């Protein structure tokens, strides 16, 4: 019943007026998300651009049922994810900036465990692991090495492979390339492109890399201090903020929309965090 409902759903994700605040002091609260609304169509890749502390990770946590919103609605394939988290969890997966693995276990052991949490047996997962790892150019001879022996880039590839093993219809990517060297970054970005092409997944990609957002996403949102202040295609965003003959870069769009550069916004957020 749920699978049929999910297959019929028009949108992969619908957020309506999501608010989330966290306690800072005894009576003090900080808003992480302020009335955020967005729709992710099936098969679409939407990027959320924002500096550190803008609310990107909270947004991903709310969608992935790890954080409860104070108000608003989260529908994943038409199902209320706040009221029925178990019904939607098996249709989505997440890759975050930190590689969430048991570091002493091997890639194979971590992948087998991750797959089992989604009801995939060893017999089903082992050939899939081989196929996926071959597909992403992972040296299979290293599959039994502890994760802590692998580079960050390789760990991030394994994280993407783990998500693919569970056949997610909605992928939540929270800064998957942050901190990677240029080569690994490129590899992971290629992998995201391949996931989109081969898996019919809908993808929400949070990043603070403008180039990555522009290259990989159909639409781009700008999140600043918990508010989604823009959401459109890169072309439309540029057109809306064009002054003169030359179309602006995405950096210039960000600056025009927020009144600050991404670096300055990150610096301000760090200062605010320190003061708090």
């Amino acid at each position: 019943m749920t699978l049929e409902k999910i297959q019929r759903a028009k949108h992969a994700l619908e957020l309506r007026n999501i608010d989330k605040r966290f306690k800072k002091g005894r009576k003090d609260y900080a808003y992480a998300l302020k009335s955020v609304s967005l729709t992710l169509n099936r098969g679409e890749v939407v990027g959320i651009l924002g500096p550190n502390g803008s609310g990107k990770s909270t947004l991903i946590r709310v969608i992935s049922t790890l954080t409860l919103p104070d108000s608003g609605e989260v529908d994943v394939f038409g199902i209320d994810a706040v009221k029925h988290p178990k019904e939607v969890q098996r249709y989505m997966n997440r890759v975050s900036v930190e590689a969430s693995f048991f570091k002493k276990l091997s890639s194979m052991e971590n992948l087998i465990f991750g797959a089992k949490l989604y009801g995939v047996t060893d017999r089903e997962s082992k050939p899939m692991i081989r196929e996926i790892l071959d597909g992403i150019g992972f040296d299979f001879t290293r599959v039994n090495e502890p994760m802590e022996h692998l580079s960050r880039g390789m760990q991030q590839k394994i994280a993407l492979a783990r998500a693919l093993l569970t056949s997610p219809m909605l992928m939540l990517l929270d800064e998957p390339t942050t901190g990677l060297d240029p080569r690994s970054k490129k590899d992971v970005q290629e992998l995201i492109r391949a996931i989109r092409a081969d898996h019919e997944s809908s993808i929400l990609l949070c990043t603070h890399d403008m180039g990555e957002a522009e290259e990989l996403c159909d639409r781009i949102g700008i999140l600043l201090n918990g508010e989604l202040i823009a959401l459109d295609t890169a072309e439309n965003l540029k057109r809306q903020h064009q002054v003169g003959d030359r179309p602006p870069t995405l950096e210039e769009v960000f600056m025009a929309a927020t009144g600050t550069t991404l670096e300055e916004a990150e610096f301000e957020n760090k200062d605010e965090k320190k003061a708090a």
Partner: protein
Amino acid sequence: MHAASAPLTKPGWLRELIAVWGYAQRNYYLTKRYVLWEVVWLVYTTMNALTIGFIGVGSGGSAEEIARLTTFLLIGSMVWSYLSMIFDLLSETVSWERWEGTIEYTFMSPASRVTQLLGMGVYAIVYGMARVIVMLIAISFFFDLSLGDANYLGAAGILAVCSVSLVGFGMVAAVMPLLSPEKGQQVTSIVTAVLLLISGIYYSIDVLPGWMQPLAYLSPVYYALDGIRETLLEGQTFGSQWDNIWPLLIMGAVFPPLGLWLFQRGEHYAKRTGRLKRAG
């Protein structure tokens, strides 16, 4: 690359069963990876049991009295080693995931909390049993034990009943690190220490101060030890230990659902306050 649709079409109960096996298998993998530390802890707990056994040997009295006291102490040591292992593994479910950085991945997966705690419980019981058997073999080389009348089957039955209540007791404690990452772990360590003090592991609870003795009746470990000592030292039957079994059955019926309910409330609180994050 292609995505298999197998997990999307399986019935819920089968997916949960696969996940229970997943948790148990993961813990086995971790034990294998940390095998040297496992050996170190096994040697440490065996030496600890031997040390306590030798206190009995040096206590004086007839050979029969010495054998009886030594056996009394070693039963306490072995049963505590097993039951505290179950309690620790269950109560550290959350802190362990938080420390490894996998807590978010685990909690956003579709496997239920019952499944997670059941998987942890199954592994704790099997692993605890294996450790105790190795310890028993090692200890048997050192002491003349008073086990001529022992009813091993009766003792195993009591241990099995107690294991269920200890799994539930561990679930209750596991909620603490959800509410407060660091303080929660500190509280569960204190709970372990209090269980050690009040449960009559190495002495009869009669030697405790009067106000402390009633606390023993709240501990499943007390009933398990009392029953196991009666069956091993006195050769009593499982049925004759009803006075120890019924409290364990009640605890076994109450603690697991209570632990699960508390765990779900704790999870809700952690999701509302944003505490479901990695640490370290």
